C-alpha cells in the first residue's frame, strides 16, 4: 500500500483550483503528456531503444480517435481503445528496424518515420490535410459529461495510476527485468534466454500504445488537431520530459511533463522568452541533477528497489 501513497498529493491538487477551469485544463494537459512520456520512458529507460519519432504515435492516436468520433460518430471510449490498438500495430512495424540497428542509426530511422507520418497526414482528405480537424467533441463518459476539466483530470489520473500499477508490478519480474537486461547488455541478456526479438517489439508496441492513447485524449481535450502539432519538437520534448523529471519513474515523468507543459503557462503572463528560461533550467538540471528533478526526493528507480 505504501508505494501508492505518493499519488495522494496528485489526487488533491485540483481541489484548490475548482473555480479556475483554465488551470485545471492545464493539469489535464500535463497528465496527457505524462502518459505519452511514460511511453517514451518504457522505450528508452526500460528497453534501451532510442526513438525520436514518438510524436508520430501521438499523431496516429489523435487522428484515429478524432476521425472515428467526428466522421463515424463512434463513442469516445471505443475510439480511445482503437487508437491505442492502431498505434500499437504501427509501433510493432516501426520496431522492426530496431532488430537490425541501434543507437544513432535507430534514432535517425525513427526520426524519418516521425517526419514521414506528419507529411502523410498532411496529404490526405480524411485527416483534413494541413488544416487538420476542428471541433472534436468532448467525450461523454457513462455517467457524467466529461466537459468539466475536473472529471477529465481524474480520468487521466486514473489512467496514469493504472499504468503505474502495471509498471511497478512488472518492474521486478520476468518481463521488466528482461527489458532492463536487454538495455544493459544484449549479448548477456540473449545468453540467459531473453528473446530480443520479442522484447524489442513488445517495448515498441507498449510505447506506441501508451503514446497513441495519450494522443486520443489530447485530441478530445484540445478539440483541434493539425499536422504541425506533431512535429519533431514534440518527440524531443517527450524525451526531455523523461530525462528532466527522472527516468524510470512514473512520478519523475509526471514532474518532467509538468515542467515542460506547465511552465510555459505559468510564465505566459510575463514578458520573458520561455525558450530561454526552459533552456537555462534544462542545463542547470542536467548539470546538478543528472538523474532528473526526482533526485531531490532521493527516490530509487523501480529497478533498484529492495526486494529480498
Amino acid at each position: 500500500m505504501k508505494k501508492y501513497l505518493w499519488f495522494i498529493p496528485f489526487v488533491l491538487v485540483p481541489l484548490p483550483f475548482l473555480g479556475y477551469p483554465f488551470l485545471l485544463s492545464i493539469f489535464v494537459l500535463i497528465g496527457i503528456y505524462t502518459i505519452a512520456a511514460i511511453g517514451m520512458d518504457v522505450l528508452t529507460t526500460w528497453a534501451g531503444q532510442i526513438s525520436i519519432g514518438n510524436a508520430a504515435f501521438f499523431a496516429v492516436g489523435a487522428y484515429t480517435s478524432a476521425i472515428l468520433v467526428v466522421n463515424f460518430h463512434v463513442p469516445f471510449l471505443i475510439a480511445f481503445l482503437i487508437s491505442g490498438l492502431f498505434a500499437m500495430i504501427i509501433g510493432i512495424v516501426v520496431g522492426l528496424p530496431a532488430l537490425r540497428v541501434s543507437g544513432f542509426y535507430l534514432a535517425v530511422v525513427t526520426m524519418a518515420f516521425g517526419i514521414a507520418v506528419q507529411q502523410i497526414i498532411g496529404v490526405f482528405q480524411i485527416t483534413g490535410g494541413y488544416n487538420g480537424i476542428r471541433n472534436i467533441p468532448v467525450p461523454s463518459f457513462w455517467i457524467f459529461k466529461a466537459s468539466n476539466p475536473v472529471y477529465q483530470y481524474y480520468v487521466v489520473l486514473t489512467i496514469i495510476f493504472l499504468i503505474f500499477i502495471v509498471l511497478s508490478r512488472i518492474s521486478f519480474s520476468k518481463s521488466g527485468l528482461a527489458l532492463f537486461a536487454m538495455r544493459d547488455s544484449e549479448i548477456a541478456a540473449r545468453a540467459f534466454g531473453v528473446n530480443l526479438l520479442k522484447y524489442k517489439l513488445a517495448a515498441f508496441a507498449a510505447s506506441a500504445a501508451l503514446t497513441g492513447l495519450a494522443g486520443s485524449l489530447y485530441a478530445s481535450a484540445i478539440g483541434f488537431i493539425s499536422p504541425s502539432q506533431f512535429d519533431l519538437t514534440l518527440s524531443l520534448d517527450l524525451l526531455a520530459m523523461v530525462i528532466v523529471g527522472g527516468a524510470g519513474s512514473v512520478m519523475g515523468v509526471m514532474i518532467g511533463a509538468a515542467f515542460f507543459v506547465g511552465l510555459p503557462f505559468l510564465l505566459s503572463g510575463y514578458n520573458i522568452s520561455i525558450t530561454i528560461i526552459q533552456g537555462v533550467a534544462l542545463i542547470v538540471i542536467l548539470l546538478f541533477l543528472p538523474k532528473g528533478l526526482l533526485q531531490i526526493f532521493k527516490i530509487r528507480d523501480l529497478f533498484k528497489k529492495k526486494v529480498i
Partner: protein
Amino acid sequence: MILSIKALSVKFKGLIAVNNFSMDVEKGSFHSLIGPNGAGKTTVVNALTRVVPSTGTALFEGIDLLKMPAHRIINAGVARTFQNLELFKNLTVAGNLYIGAHHTINYNFFDEIFGTKSYKSEQSRIFRNVTEISEMLDIKRYLNMSVSSLPYGTQKLVEIGRAVISKPKLLILDEPFAGLNDQESEKLKEEILRIKGFYALTILMIEHDMKIVMSVSDKITVMNFGEKIAEGSPSEIIQNRKVAEAYLGDRSYSRS
C-alpha cells in the same frame, strides 16, 4: 560425453579465427581450453553460444547447439560467463541473479499484472534460489546493492552466480581469474570447485593462469592460430613440445 564439437570453423571476413576445430568434453569433468592470445579460444565459446556464426557441429547431449538461436542455448543447459564482464550494470545484484533464472520462469504477462497464484509461487521460488546462490558465493550482503558499485572480484562472483542459477549442465567460464590477485584467485578457485561439486556441473574453462589450470583440470585442450595443437591430462600437456613452442616460440623462428 556431454559436448562433442566436430569440424568447427569461424571466419570473419576472410580471416579464419577457428579452423576445423574438434573437441570432446566428458560429463562431470573440468576441461580447460588454453592457448596464446588470439588463438581463438573465446571465439570457440562464442560460436558455441551462437554469438558468432560458424560452421560444423557441436552436439550437446545429442542436440546441435549450432542450429539453435542464441536465446535457446540456455534452455539446452549451457551457461557462460564473459571475458570482459557482461553484467547488467544498472541493476542490483539480485536483479542480475534474477535474469539468470529468466528461462525457468513459468508465468506470462497477465500473471504478472494480476499477481496470480502461479506468479506468486514462481517469484518466491526464484527469490529463494537467488538467496541460496548468494549465500553459497558469500555475496548475500550485496544483494540490494547496485552491481556496478562492487569491486571487480565480487562482480566476477555475481557473474558466476548468474550462470549457476540458470541450473546449467555445462558451465563455460571465460578467463575467470584474469585481473585477480593471488588471494582473490585462490578464493575464486575454491568457490568454483565447490559449486562444481554441489551442482554436479561440467566445466569448460578458458584460462591463462597455468598454475590454476594445472591444479584444477582433468583435461586440457591447447589451441594456437585457430587450431587444436594438443590435448591431454595436465602432466601430458606440460611435457608437450608443441605447447612449449606455442607459448615460448619455436627455436628455429619458423612456423610450420
